[in-house]
């Protein structure tokens, strides 16, 4: 990074990534892909396997964002834009999941095994 210390010097419109960074990032990503496939072969239990796979995916995505997409060297506001999109998306997932976990029981998934009747007293009418 030494020779590209200035993000916006007079000659460059934007940060120029060094070849070393690019290649190192690419290699790491490929290795992580191998790792994530290998991790599936080992049985840690469904949830842990999923967690491992997702953690690796998040690491990979972060590498891409930081180095390939230059976000590390870019304006802060671009990070704000990107993160706010992620926040909005997670809000979407979170709220919908919160709701659906309540009403999913009433969704008759398998007609041959209808959901159990709700527990508790019947609601009093009127």
């Amino acid at each position, binding site marked *: 990074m030494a020779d590209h210390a200035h993000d916006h010097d007079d000659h460059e419109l934007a940060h120029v990534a060094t070849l070393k960074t690019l290649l190192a990032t690419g290699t790491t990503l490929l290795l992580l892909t191998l790792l994530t496939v290998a991790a599936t072969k080992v049985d840690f239990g469904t949830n842990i396997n999923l967690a491992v796979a997702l953690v690796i995916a998040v690491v990979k995505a972060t590498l891409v964002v930081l180095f390939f997409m230059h976000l590390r060297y870019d304006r802060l506001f671009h990070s704000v834009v990107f993160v706010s999109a992620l926040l909005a998306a997670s809000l979407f997932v979170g*709220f919908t999941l919160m709701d659906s976990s*309540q*009403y999913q029981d009433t*969704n008759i998934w398998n007609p041959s095994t209808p959901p159990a009747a709700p527990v508790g007293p019947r609601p009093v009418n009127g």
Partner: protein
Amino acid sequence: MNLEILVLIIVVTALSGGALAAIFAGKKHRHALAWFFLSFWLGVIGPIGDFVLGQRDWVSPIVATIVGAVIGVVVVLVVPALPVQPDPVYPDGPKDEKDYLHCSKGFLSWALTLDHKRIGLMYLFGILFSLLVGGVFALLVRTELFFPGKTIVDQDMYNKFFTLHGAIMVFLVIIPGIPAALGNIIMPIQLGAPDVAFPRLNLASFYLWCSGAILLVLTIPFGGLDTGWTLYTPYSLESKTPVLVATMGVFLLGFSSIFTGLNFLVTIHKFRPQGMGWFQMPLNVWAIYATAIMQVLATPVLGITVLLLTVERFAHIGIFDPNLGGDPVLFQHFFWFYSHPAVYIMIIPGMGVVNELISTYAGKPIFGYRFIAYSSISLALLSFLVWGHHMFVSGQSRLANMVFSALTFTVAIPSAIKIFNWVATLYKADIRLKTGMIYGLAFLLLFTIGGLTGLFLGILSVDVHLHDTYFVVAHFHYVMMGSTLVAFLGALHHWWPKFTGRMYNEKIGQICAFGVFFGFNFTFMPQFVMGARGMPRRYWDYDPQYTIFHQLSTIGAFILGFSIFITVISLVASFWTGKKAPRNPWGGSSLEWQAPTPPPLYNFEKPPVLHELYNYDDLVEVEPDRWERKTPIEDEPEKADAIARKIGAVTDHTAGATQAERAAAMIHAKAEEVRAEHDVTESSKGKALDPKDLAADKAEAAKVAGAGEVMPTATAEQAKDEEAKNKDEGEKK
């Protein structure tokens, strides 16, 4: 696979091709691409004709499509080979200061324009046309409800009427109304920018809007749509009406909206002139900024939702179909994740223009500028947290109901902040009841009613009673129509002289504004009453006890419709009959009133001078409907600019707002000297200047913040020349 789907495939291919082309192509190829786009549409007409005639013949649509495609390809190959005239429109336009309406002529100079004002004007006419179509459906709905039972049409047709009224009004009129049409025309000028950041993208959004609008309107010859504008599953999966055409239309409209928002965000970020910090922007720009945030972050969800609905409908993938394990409530989550922010996409721009209306016609600085700005942004953010309040009785869980109900109340805070600030602005003001101001005041009343009734509906227990009744209908009409459309009409009158160069007929405008206000209340007040008494919405028939309310409502609707119709006719007629408009007919303080009327291609013939925003002390009405600044600064911008350069104020600006403000103050102080020199000449012109005023101005200039210099189009050569000239002058002295 049926004809409907075939049409869709063609249309989508054509549109994506056309839109992409408009985005990527260079200016030389734009002609070709527009033809390509049009010819694809020719290809689409064949299948449509087939469908209308009831033929189920596969040959002619295919032939028509191929013909359209061939014409398109030929045109694409041939037109670029033709000798191309220098682009009359952009960016190498003529250098003389003809206004944007007259700087070039011919159909193509409009169809291919990159000028934001022309694009905005085309949007405006499209929207007014859609308003007409949607309004006719509204009147048909109201006519049908005049008597219980059948009045003019049967139940199925009634379903189609209210669906088309809703879909057209929401997607074609209110959402693009202020941001895409008036925002496009006015916002860059208010920023002192020569254009939006991405003019080609702007044109592409317009054509996406056109295409979406055509598809949505096409549902009428296809037999009408009867799902309600919300397109709820599972009915929308089963309806025999052309849902696919509508969903694809909505998809395209959504992307039009996204690209417009994106364009405006970049414009506001990157095209503010130096000296205009975030808090020196007009509040209208703030509102458009908040709107654009929602457009970019929420609208894609609508896109994917209608895309999934489309695929679900013809491929039965089962996402929303309970028979295949799908979840219809999920559709409502998807839909309202967009459509609740969409409600704010509709209202916030309305609030934005009301700031301008109230401040200008009251002639007072807006009260609580920062609070209004922040409240716009916080409304935009809160809009993402409350979508579930549309689903209280949709089978949503109790937990989610409670959370969403609680969050809904937070929305009242920023809304109330705005209302209080506007009322405070009006306090002891010298209010001029121009047409724009009548609409502005109507907005205050109607939005207050709409907002407060929204609180009733946010209360979970009350909503269970009121949900899907006319109370809800009245509530959202007070917000969407009573507020947004009224603000739209107000803004239209306010800026009409600016972008058409003609004054509208003030008398007719005022009378119609009162007509709109009374007609509106006539229409929707009774609906609150009957809604509270249990009249369900979307019903074709009703209990005779509601007859009187329905009849009042229908009469009101006709008064309203008539008033709007006359308004639009009067405005359009002023193109030919109106007298020439001056630069600043209302005494506005923001930059667009500095631009010539109508503005030239790049909006300003010379770099505009920033004055303190919403400060009207400097403005005098020299004759009716013509305001001028007392300071001659704008007559001497080059000189002021040169001085600014000399003292180093303009070049030393890298440290941000505070320094820019300091620089602005210095410019202002220097400009005072210039003004003093010109004092005599000013007086001889008849604009008598009070020495007391001058002294006050001087004192003010010292403390002024946020004023400054803007030079968006100045070239370096000019700047250097100025500097050199100035140096010479200084040496002579």
